[in-house]
């Protein structure tokens, strides 16, 4: 579904969704959201861990 090519003749960028900038923006935002989510999850984990030793 995501292939950006139908033939290998005269191909340049051939990765999934290379011809769909909107999808690429969404994926980039998704990747950024994962980084933000990771930090938030670590903060929560730390807060919970520190709470136990109070």
């Amino acid at each position: 579904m995501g292939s950006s090519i139908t033939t290998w003749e005269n191909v340049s960028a051939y990765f999934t969704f290379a011809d769909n900038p909107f999808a690429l923006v969404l994926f980039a935002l998704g990747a950024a959201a994962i980084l933000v989510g990771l930090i938030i999850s670590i903060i929560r984990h730390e807060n919970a861990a520190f709470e136990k030793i109070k």
Partner: protein
Amino acid sequence: MENSPTLESLQAALDAQQAVFEMHQAMNIEVFYWWCTAIMLMIHAGFLAYEMGASRSKNALAAGIKNILAIAVIIPAFYLFGWWIYNAFPNGFVPIEAAAALPWSASMGPDVQDMGTGIFWAAFALFGATTGSILSGAVIERIRVSSFLILTIFLGGVVWIMAGAWGWHPDGWLLTKFGYHDLGASGVVHAVAGFFTLGVLMNLGARKGKFINGVPQIISPHSLPMTLIGLMMIIFGFFGFLGGCIIFNGGETGWSTIYGTPTNLSAFAFNTLMGFAGGIIGCYIATRDPFWTMSGGLVGIISVAAGLDLYSPSLAFIIAVCTGIVAIQFAKFLEKRGIDDAVGAVTVHGFTGLAALVMVGVFAGGTPNIEGLPAISFTGQLIGAAVMGLMGFVPGYGLSLLLKKANILRVPEACEDIGIDEVEILAKPYPEGSVPAMTAMTTSEVPNKLASSEA
């Protein structure tokens, strides 16, 4: 006669050979940087061993997990915005057009026609990860993993590469206005990361028990041998790092510096090894301490890296020895002022990186750049050093101050007492109680114990 080659058939054969040659040349370029990147990962294996060894056993895994996660967050951060920053900001803070480097560009992925972007991005991403590891060691045993990751994303994905766009880009303003020369990234990677670390340490504070009534105390690492092996692994990784600092050109040009001037790997080989040896000797003379002696190898390489293509090897050796000796004085200076840099990162990377830039001005001033650009000069290098120091320190101090104000910079005191592994990591480094040299190390001299060298 009918089988004799015609002019047209000879030309066609020649064109075919030329196409084969060009494809193989492009593949060679890819192969070279692929292996440089792979070898650079050894830097991170080394930092991992080095930081875990330098920690007390109660914090060994926390130091390790922090380092592993740093690489994991810097790589996507560098994909999402780091590569664009490098391409967009050579003129300062105002971006130029660099849409091809945005993460949603068709250039930022597998492309049959582009055999350069991915491999250069990868090498730069690993340079960025190195900056994160430089910060990581200094802050062990008291920083929160979450705040460390915020800091490291900012350092490895934004700060150093902005400095890289200014001083390590063919159109960077430090080069075009001042003839700045920083071939092996002494400034853009090491000085920036080192002074960013200093800014963080000022807000983070010392490990509990490091200073009593202002007098620095010995905090023993749990495995000095692990730190020494880690440092040697970092040295190995530096050959990938420095290989990534040379430009493998197509066509007739051959090797060049990132500034477009001619050089070759032979030049790098002479001065990398002579610097390595000199740094070890300098730090050994100044301390007799095993940790600092091995760290001296890093000091030596970084001290000559900025002018790696220009120095006579004997001069590189002398520069490295002298920098090693002076760097120890700088480390003592920091410790006397209450800075607890657990692995000497500010000294090894920050101080040495700046010294390396200035020494290029002292010893290689007058060396021409390519046509139309100013020659290397003492003033230009001094300005570059000041920019790199500030570029690291100001963001590091500012962001860590914000995190401190938000009360998420440092672990609670009780956690520091118990150990971060026990509280947060939920795993034990030595579950069967066989902590390496546990009893012996508690009474021995230790890394970063500068006071011991004053005897």
